[in-house]
């Protein structure tokens, strides 16, 4: 069973607030990912990291930023939340072997009023 955690699970916040979504994994994986998913829709990669001090933007443009100071921790920050940021955010991690799967956290459902 994958050990990847996200907090908070649900967040309702007003426009203009700064928020940080936490993601941590205990598997020692180098690779970590953030996806955005609207209800019932496909996942879109917004950020990824291949290791400490490595971060890249994904396929979907996002106003969020990420950091990777420790292997196990990959937080996502929105400096000024807007209603268009309302979505589910899924964090995932994967190992380095060719067969490795991406394991997903439980997700954070964000609502910006």
């Amino acid at each position, binding site marked *: 069973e994958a050990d990847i955690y996200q907090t908070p699970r649900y967040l309702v916040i007003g426009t203009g607030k700064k928020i940080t979504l936490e993601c941590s994994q205990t598997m020692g994986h180098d*690779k970590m*990912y953030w*996806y955005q998913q609207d209800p*019932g*829709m*496909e*996942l*879109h*990669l917004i950020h*990824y990291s291949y290791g400490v001090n490595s971060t*890249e933007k*994904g*396929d979907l443009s996002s106003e969020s930023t990420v950091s990777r100071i420790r292997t196990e921790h990959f937080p996502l920050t929105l400096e000024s939340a807007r209603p268009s940021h309302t979505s589910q955010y*899924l964090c*995932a991690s994967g190992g380095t072997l*060719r*067969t490795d*799967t*991406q*394991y*997903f*956290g*439980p*997700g954070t*459902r964000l609502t910006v009023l």
Partner: protein
Amino acid sequence: ELKVEQNPLFLSMQEGKNYTIYCNYSTTSDRLYWYRQDPGKSLESLFVLLSNGAVKQEGRLMASLDTKARLSTLHITAAVHDLSATYFCAVYISNFGNEKLTFGTGTRLTIIP
């Protein structure tokens, strides 16, 4: 740009019946994943297919990969209600060291008693 298309998008079937979900993708890849997502939940890994002709089976689900046709199938045998969920395929791409998954649109499966 890689496109991953699933069909059907919605599938309602009776218990006990067989059906197949198709995943087509537009560029070369030799690795494909299938995930399951229950409503409001995160993604659960089902299968990883690593080569042309690969076939994996778990219970009533069987997945296969044809890299030449750029096609993967997820076959459901004698469906039961517990299989109701959204199923995603995800295609692995490695480009100059950047490794990413591109997800399909998802197939929402409803099994009717």
